């Protein structure tokens, strides 16, 4: 699974994930006003904080770390003091998510709870807190468009519209039937593809379909990393030392 984070101005990779996000406030208010109906009709656990049993996600399904991952678990646990084993819950959830195709079924969370020796609810608390943990099935690519104010000003709504039109899906509806893209909204969390335009977002999706890796970071060829377009305008020389400080006097 991949998550691609696309921003009003920005889109980015995290561990092979594609996020596209936008219109957060709107989706949020809609969700909160009729959560129950929303949850059932959309089947989207990312939004609701209630687990609903399904054929691929219920506590009765057996779930275990793979042999390779068990070794990794053994490597992760000693990073934390033995009386604070529960500190390992985030790395273990991450490991479980990678093992389970990019999302965490409730039985995986229970397995993590067992490993760190806490009640399952303590793990659910963490998994629901972090939006990077997906609690329902996601597609091969998980596109998230950021909808926070700076991104919205940079045109995230238009980018989202172009993306939805190109993919032919609705917001928050993962389309598993014909393809591999799932699509949900999200906040901007950090590592995004920047300077995305309505054309560029379509190109990114097409690259993904072809199995290519879209470039990380800014999508504006004139920019280098986070620097401004056309090279630096400030900080061109070494910074001057503070004028008042007399090192000899120290």
């Amino acid at each position, binding site marked *: 699974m991949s998550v691609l984070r696309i921003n009003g101005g920005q889109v980015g990779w995290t561990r092979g994930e594609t996020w596209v996000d936008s219109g957060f406030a709107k989706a949020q208010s809609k969700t909160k*006003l009729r*959560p129950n109906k929303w949850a059932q009709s959309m089947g989207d656990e990312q939004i609701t*904080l209630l687990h609903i049993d399904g054929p691929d996600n219920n506590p009765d399904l057996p779930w275990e770390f793979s042999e390779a991952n068990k070794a990794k678990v053994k490597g992760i646990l000693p990073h934390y003091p033995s009386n604070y084993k529960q500190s390992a819950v985030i790395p273990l959830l991450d490991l479980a998510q990678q093992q389970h195709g990019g999302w965490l079924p409730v039985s995986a969370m229970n397995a993590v709870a067992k490993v760190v020796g806490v009640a399952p609810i303590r793990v659910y608390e963490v998994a629901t807190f972090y939006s990077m943990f997906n609690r329902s099935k996601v597609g091969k690519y998980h596109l998230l468009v950021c909808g926070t104010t700076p991104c919205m000003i940079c045109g995230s709504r238009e980018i989202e519209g172009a993306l939805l039109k190109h993919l032919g899906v609705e917001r928050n509806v993962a389309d598993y039937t014909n393809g591999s893209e799932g699509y949900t909204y999200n906040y901007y969390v950090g590592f995004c593809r920047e300077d995305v335009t309505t054309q560029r977002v379509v190109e990114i999706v097409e690259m993904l379909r072809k199995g290519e890796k879209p470039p990380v970071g800014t999508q504006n060829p004139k920019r280098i990393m986070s620097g401004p377009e056309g090279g630096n305008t400030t900080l061109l020389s070494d910074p001057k030392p503070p004028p008042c400080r007399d090192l000899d006097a120290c």
Partner: protein
Amino acid sequence: MGLGLLASRTLKTSRVLSSQYSRFRPIVTKPGLQSPDASAAAPATQPEPTPPPPKKPVGGARVHFTNPDDALEVFVDGFPVKIPKGMTVLQACEIAGVDIPRFCYHSRLSIAGNCRMCLVEVEKSPKPVASCAMPALPGMKIKTDTPLAKKAREGVMEFLLMNHPLDCPICDQGGECDLQDQSMAFGSDRGRFTEMKRSVVDKNLGPLVKTVMTRCIQCTRCVRFATEVAGVQDLGMLGRGSGEEIGTYVEKLMTSELSGNVIDICPVGALTSKPFAFKARNWELKGTETIDVTDAVGSNIRIDSRGPEVMRILPRLNEDINEEWISDKTRFCYDGLKRQRLNDPMIRDANGRFKAVSWRDALAVVAEVTLQVKPEEIVGIAGKLSDAESMMALKDLLNNMGSNNVWCEGTGTSPNADLRYRYLMNSSIAGLEKADVFLLVGTQPRVEAAMVNARIRKTVRASNAKVAYIGPPTEFNYDCQHLGTGPQTLIEIAEGRHSFCSAISNAKNPAIIVGAGLFERDDKDAIFAAVEAIAKNGNVIRPDWNGFNVLLLNAAQAAALDLGLVPESSNSIESTKFLYLMGADDVNLDKVPADAFVVYQGHHGDQSVYRANVILPSAAFSEKEGTYENTEGCSQQTLPAVPTVGDARDDWKIIRALSEVAGIRLPYDTLGAIRSRMRTVAPNLLNRDEIEPAAFGPSLSPDCSQKISSTPFKAAVENFYMTDSITRASKIMAQCSAMLLKK
């Protein structure tokens, strides 16, 4: 709460200010608020006005200095106050008599510090300080009444009310809601939030707790209560930011025997009582401070009634017994008081049907039978809910008739009433907190006495005490080592062959708790002898510590044994011709001869009524004044909260009337007179709210020649929710048994 005074002060000032600014801005502020430095510096230059006298601590809070060197002095609103090291700023303020508003802070739970309502100003601190989470430091100058603190509270209150629905008129918490009270005292009269309020899905926590999660202010008191006190880790804080919710994530009911307490600790109307929903407003209710009788703990309760009806039951604070919690059975059994009540004296006619008669006729029929039977054929059994007065009267009545076959159900056929330490919790309930090793013998306190179990859990959490258990497999809500199922294990420990012996002998304060379910066993003397051997080997009974405990099952047991309700012969019930059941519903009546005349005196048409020939209706614990002694030997008193049902009378009055009709008049006419009679038998029953410790230890115990049988221990209580006639008549308890008990 001392919020009223602060409220009036706050309201007064805000009124003056709003008249000045109201045309322009809804929320007002003084220039002094903008620069706290200026306002802090100002009083220093002004001449100090004579300070008001120091206030008394909030709620009679007492300071206990374990080590005098650890005392430190802080200043609250200018007054010096001495507090022990490690106290928080909020606690220091309470000692100084200043009540700080709070939502998330609860003295019996861990500190969360997330509601921010308790912000106060501390000199030299750049920002207001959350007083519940800030340790008090020497010389700290705490200011609770400054413009900065007031503005901080007002701001926090505005944020809390932002997403809180305006449904106080239909909210069950209305009138006793912390948020309502504190927003009156510390909040603004308007808010600036114009967007849509959020809404949250309601959770299903079972038949007792109703949830309206939209009202939740995320104080996490319920989460901490469930995790720390109740020991069921089901509730959690899910999500983040504005989407944060209290929930269970997976569909789960709250299967704790203490779940009702989350209703009390919830500061808003998010968690309310399901059976009490929309039934009454708290200001319509009359509170009566009384005692619970559904188990042997004697939890202190307040019965809230409206007219003749018990509306709800709430806990009262008693640090020595129930702290401020009560079990779900105590809290929700009250609807059983309205169902299946006996309200008229009744006689079974020739067709086997009951016919309502007058008291005169009913008593005449009973008195006539008593005159026809031989004294040794008369048997009396007191029920598990009987008060000490009526048991005294019953014993006197039967003794006057020439019979001494009177006992209280649940004490077994040959109870040992001479040695008081053998039926009391000698270390007391609060004393259990000092123990570091527990050995539970044939008892599951979680269902037998939920408050005692809460105490053990508290000890286990606080001091990592070890708990071991001998009895049928069961679930505990703390770490518990299951040693075995029967007396075999007990003997192994007594003889020093078991690995657990070293744990007892190495412990500082070992506590052994023996279940009263063992009273029913034939080899009970041998079991007690084995337990006493363990106690002797492990140095459990010392002058400074007595860890030999018996956990009784019923409210009447301790008083019955104190009053000497001991049967003369163990199988008298098989040859009885006249059986007097005073609320005894759990006695096995199969062996009662078919021609025996059975009188049932009680308040509920429960199991024994099917065998009764005459029914004499009596008052339930909520309707009478009576003395009850709890499992630690502390006598307490119930008070009538509601009038009796129909033609029912107090138990002792019925027996007194019967004695007169039968021609053996008992010499007391008032409750005072019957209590002076009790004084001659068991004076400790009159020392109210005092624990009377057992006078002698096992040094006096008789030698036991009994052989211990290998039959494993049985569970004393099968269904926590239904143990007596009141709870068996309760619909709520029936729902709980159906939904919460694992089949």
